[in-house]
């Protein structure tokens, strides 16, 4: 009887341990800027997208029968902090993968740590090609990349048939890299175009000295390769000085800032007539899951969703699908699954290229649009589409200011 009792206790203890293990959540690390000087606006949107999709997955029973848990780390947009955050997520929090990166300089620091620990790293929104060129097997890129934007911008600039183009680029890996690439693409697609770029401090508050010389010899087009808040300040000062947007000079945003929730509050008239490169537009075709994520976000925030919401959602979904496919949370197994994955996320179907260089483990044919803002406070859904994914530009639709 005594031994039977002992056996029962042992069996209960084992069952309890197994149940506890089964109930242990799968932990995903998210490193984002939650405080200055990083882009907290972007960090907040990434977090919103992550939260929506994690809840959706957990409501459906989680992954491999386990709930997903997210541990956030604030990298402040500083590479050293990002490196420390990733180290902490991997070693202390024991995350199965890291995601959320949205500033290239930080991603470049973080992937070194992920590579060292062989931990999967899904790059949410770092555009610098250098991240891909590292060729790290652990790093996957479902977001946009500089070459894609530069080639798209060069195509638009060539179609606009402009002669003089000046780009204002933030002094970061992303900004300088983008500006240089744009120059290279313009040499191929529009060799007659005179192009130069000016690097500006992303923490700067007064860009008037950079703008004033343009009053004497205005270019045909000013290109923005800066993120807010510096981008907003630059736009206001370009407008205040009568440089752009104007009848002579068009303004083209290549940083995808038009769908930020605080865009109109900060630029007002300076944003009217802006041409924009965009990775999301409500008129773009989108799977049902994407529409569902967009609706949840709109209901929660009262704002139209933007690309970061979807990119963040896809980042988490990728990790979840890879775990399901690998039937394991082991880093090497997840990496292997991601390399061969045929993924359908919130933005469409894709798989990762394995070609070395900027295409390495990248969703190469990432869809984009070009649109123009024609009224102050105009939501993205009401803007004029100049180019839908995979179609030629409709330059005739572009409107210029009267003066």
């Amino acid at each position: 009887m005594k031994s039977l009792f002992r056996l029962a206790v042992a069996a209960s203890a084992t069952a309890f341990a197994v149940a506890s293990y089964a109930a242990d959540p799968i932990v995903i690390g998210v490193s984002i800027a939650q405080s200055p000087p990083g882009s907290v606006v972007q960090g907040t949107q990434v977090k919103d997208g992550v939260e929506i999709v994690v809840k959706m997955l957990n409501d459906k029973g989680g992954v491999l029968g386990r709930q997903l848990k997210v541990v956030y780390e604030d990298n402040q947009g500083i590479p050293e902090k990002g490196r420390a955050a990733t180290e902490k997520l991997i070693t202390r929090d024991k995350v199965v993968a890291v995601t959320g990166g949205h500033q290239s300089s930080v991603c470049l620091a973080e992937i070194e740590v992920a590579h060292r620990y062989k931990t999967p790293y899904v790059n949410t929104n770092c555009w610098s090609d250098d991240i891909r060129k590292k060729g790290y097997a652990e790093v996957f890129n479902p977001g946009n990349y500089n070459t894609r934007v530069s080639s798209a911008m060069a195509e638009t600039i060539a179609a606009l048939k402009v002669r003089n183009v000046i780009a204002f680029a933030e002094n970061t890996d992303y900004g300088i890299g983008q500006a240089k690439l744009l120059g290279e693409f313009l040499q191929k697609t529009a060799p007659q175009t005179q192009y130069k770029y000016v690097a500006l401090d992303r923490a700067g508050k007064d860009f008037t000295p950079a703008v004033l010389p343009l009053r004497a010899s205005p270019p045909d087009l000013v290109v923005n390769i800066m993120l807010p808040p510096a981008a907003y300040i630059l736009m206001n000062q370009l407008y205040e000085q009568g440089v752009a947007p104007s009848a002579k000079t068009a303004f083209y945003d290549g940083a995808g800032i038009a769908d930020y929730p605080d865009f109109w509050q900060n630029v007002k008239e300076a944003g009217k007539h802006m041409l924009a490169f965009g990775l999301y537009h409500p008129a773009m075709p989108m799977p049902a899951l994407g529409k569902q994520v967009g609706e949840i976000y709109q209901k929660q925030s009262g704002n139209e969703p933007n690309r970061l919401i979807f990119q963040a959602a896809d980042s988490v979904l990728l990790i979840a699908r890879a775990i399901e496919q690998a039937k394991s949370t082991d880093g090497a197994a997840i990496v292997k699954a991601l390399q061969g994955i045929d993924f359908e996320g919130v933005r469409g179907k894709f798989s990762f290229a394995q070609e070395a260089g900027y295409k390495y483990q990248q969703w190469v044919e990432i869809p984009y649009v070009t649109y123009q803002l024609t009224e102050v406070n105009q939501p993205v859904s009401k803007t004029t589409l100049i180019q839908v994914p995979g179609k030629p530009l409709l330059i005739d639709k572009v409107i210029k200011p009267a003066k």
Partner: protein
Amino acid sequence: MLPLDLFVNGLIIGLYYALMAVGLTMIFGILKVVNFAHGEFYMIGAYTYTLVSLALGVPPWLALPVAAASGALLGWATERFLMRPLYAGYGSWALMKDEYAVVVTFGLSLLLINLVDKIVGPYPMRGPSLSEVTRMAIGPFMASGQKLITAGVAIVLLIGLALFIKRSLWGRQVQAVAQNRLGASIAGIDTARASSIIFMASGVLAALAGALLAPVINPGPDVGVFPAVKSYVIVVIGGMGSIPGSVVAALALGVLESFGAVYISYDYRDTFGLVLLILVLLFRPQGLFGERAREV
């Protein structure tokens, strides 16, 4: 006409710098400490102006005095609760711990940035403009109505401050405390009140600078960091504790940066001030208008 454009723009930027730097130098002149939270006085002014105006619907011109009051309140509270331990027993003035001031103001700076980040949010908020004129040409010069109003108000504030310090009873008391705290105390001057006045005035100037620039700089929680760094440079170039020195240094720096950015390189814009700082420290360490200190 680019040089004229650059000169006028440089002067306007210099006036913004001066509003910030003068408050900082006043605190140094009286307490001999550097207020590392000075940039956050500016940030609080910008946010108060923007929120009072946008959230409560108060007209922008009425939101300005509210922003000034917020700066005064913050200045008073900083002096009353954080600075007073420095000179509670003024007899031990010589034993004042600089480290205390550095740590406490630096801590206050971080606290305020993070409080605003968590309470108001991380998004930059453009303040409402005091003028509907988004751009206007005055001869060859072009600016927004807001920029011109800001420059005008800055001039009035700086002249008003100079008159207050030179002519008013409280201003004279402040001068006395700046010269010799113990001596002023023996002469019957309430030195604690003089310190409070200076902190409040400094807070008002910084908060008004933030409020006036809120429609131009789109303030976020860390908006004060950049002008604070500029202010430290200006205060040292002008001579620590010298109000005229700070004004002249601020205007000179504004013009130098404006020309240097165009004729040398925009990339080095922020380094011009630092080069000037090094030159001043090498050849006139007390600053342009500062006095040589001698301790026995």
